[in-house]
């Protein structure tokens, strides 16, 4: 029999840390379960796991069920971070194939946490470019694309600032939606471009809740119905916030 090098408590704590990081970085429920079980297997333990949107419940057992450890951990609602998802996926295979220790795992996790995001200017400009790409796909011309670019960049800036000020996340989306559609709406009032409604409709698309909605379908198909429904409702509230922003601007500008 494989001798256990680590005690159940440190294994359980590190697994919960990994699980909550995955949940807040935008992984689906099945990926969280598979990754945590893989790491536990690599360390010689079995796991029983309950995954919900805002908390994880975990029991780790050794094979003889002599030692076990149970803990509940809240997951923090953070932004989507695929660099973390990718890094943890690598880490889990390293644990299984190169038998990493808990100390090595926690070192790797603190390295992953310290990895930088893209510079803010690059995020703003590429998301602006994505906004004008949406406008081009919807059939807008270069003038509308420019309007969408400006609206998206300023809208995203407002969202980032609102997030920094710790507003409710749905309010952040609402503020961004109002700002972006206000700029596109002003362009419509001053008759900039031939199809200003295209710019107005696509200026808020950078806010679409892509990750919650797609993860929701994936979770539902894999039988994690509860999480799937919760993610769908989260996505719907974000969509509703965007719609309320557009509605507010149409009311202000009478268009």
């Amino acid at each position, binding site marked *: 029999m494989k001798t256990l090098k680590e005690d159940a408590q440190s294994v359980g704590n590190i697994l919960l840390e990994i699980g909550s990081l995955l949940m807040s970085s*935008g*992984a*689906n429920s*099945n*990926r969280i379960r*598979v990754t945590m079980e*893989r790491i536990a297997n690599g360390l010689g333990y079995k796991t029983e796991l309950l995954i919900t949107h805002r908390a994880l419940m975990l029991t780790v057992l050794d094979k003889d069920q002599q030692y076990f450890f149970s803990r509940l951990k809240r997951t923090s609602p953070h*932004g*989507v*971070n*695929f*660099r*973390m*998802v*990718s890094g943890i*996926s*690598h880490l889990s*295979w390293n644990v299984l194939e190169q038998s990493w220790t808990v100390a090595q795992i926690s070192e790797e996790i603190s390295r992953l946490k310290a990895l930088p*995001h*893209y510079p803010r200017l*690059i*995020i703003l400009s*590429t*998301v*602006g*470019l*994505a*906004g*004008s*790409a*949406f406008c*081009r*796909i*919807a059939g807008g011309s270069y003038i509308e694309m420019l309007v969408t670019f400006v609206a998206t960049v300023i809208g995203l800036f407002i969202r980032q600032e609102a997030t920094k000020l710790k507003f409710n996340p749905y309010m952040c989306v609402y503020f961004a939606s109002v700002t972006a559609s206000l700029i596109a709406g002003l362009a419509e009032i001053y008759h900039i471009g031939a199809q200003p409604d*295209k710019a*107005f*409709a*696509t200026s808020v*698309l*950078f806010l*679409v809740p*892509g*990750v919650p*909605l*797609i993860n*929701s*379908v*994936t979770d539902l*198909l*894999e039988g994690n119905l509860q999480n799937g429904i919760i993610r769908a409702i989260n996505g719907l509230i974000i*969509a509703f916030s965007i*719609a309320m922003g*557009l*509605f507010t601007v*149409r009311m202000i500008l009478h268009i």
Partner: protein
Amino acid sequence: MLTEILIKGFWAGFAAIGFAILFNVPRRTLFPIWCIGAMGGLIKFTSMSCEISVVFASFFGAVVVGVVAIQLAHLKDSPPLIFSIPGVIPMIPGVFAYKFMLGMIALTNIENADAYLQTLIETVNNGAKMMFVLIALGTGVAIPMLLSRKESIKKSKFNKKKKAMA
């Protein structure tokens, strides 16, 4: 017509890149994400120009994105969702959602019965298209994993590297 499809596909790639950077993907996956977004867009717009409905066109696009995402996941050593989620975002039915929302708002204060009926018809039409396109995108991306019935793509038959080692 053909150039229009190509241009739209080209821009679909940039829409994918924008979201990829917003989601903080690893730098080595950026160019593959542009390719996968452009490919999904090309499939969708080509299908639509062949008079396939927007729902099925989006579904085909999403299935291609899902399959290519698994290949790229092996090539670039990253989980497939990093490629598939930004890849389907250019196909999101933004204009239908916008028209649906406008229709719903209009329905709250129309008095004339004929105008109400006309708006209701258009709103339901746009709303149904939006719903089914979203479902088609989610299902299309999940289909390769559903068909391969494996817990991890490292074990699936797409992984030639693993197979050669065994």
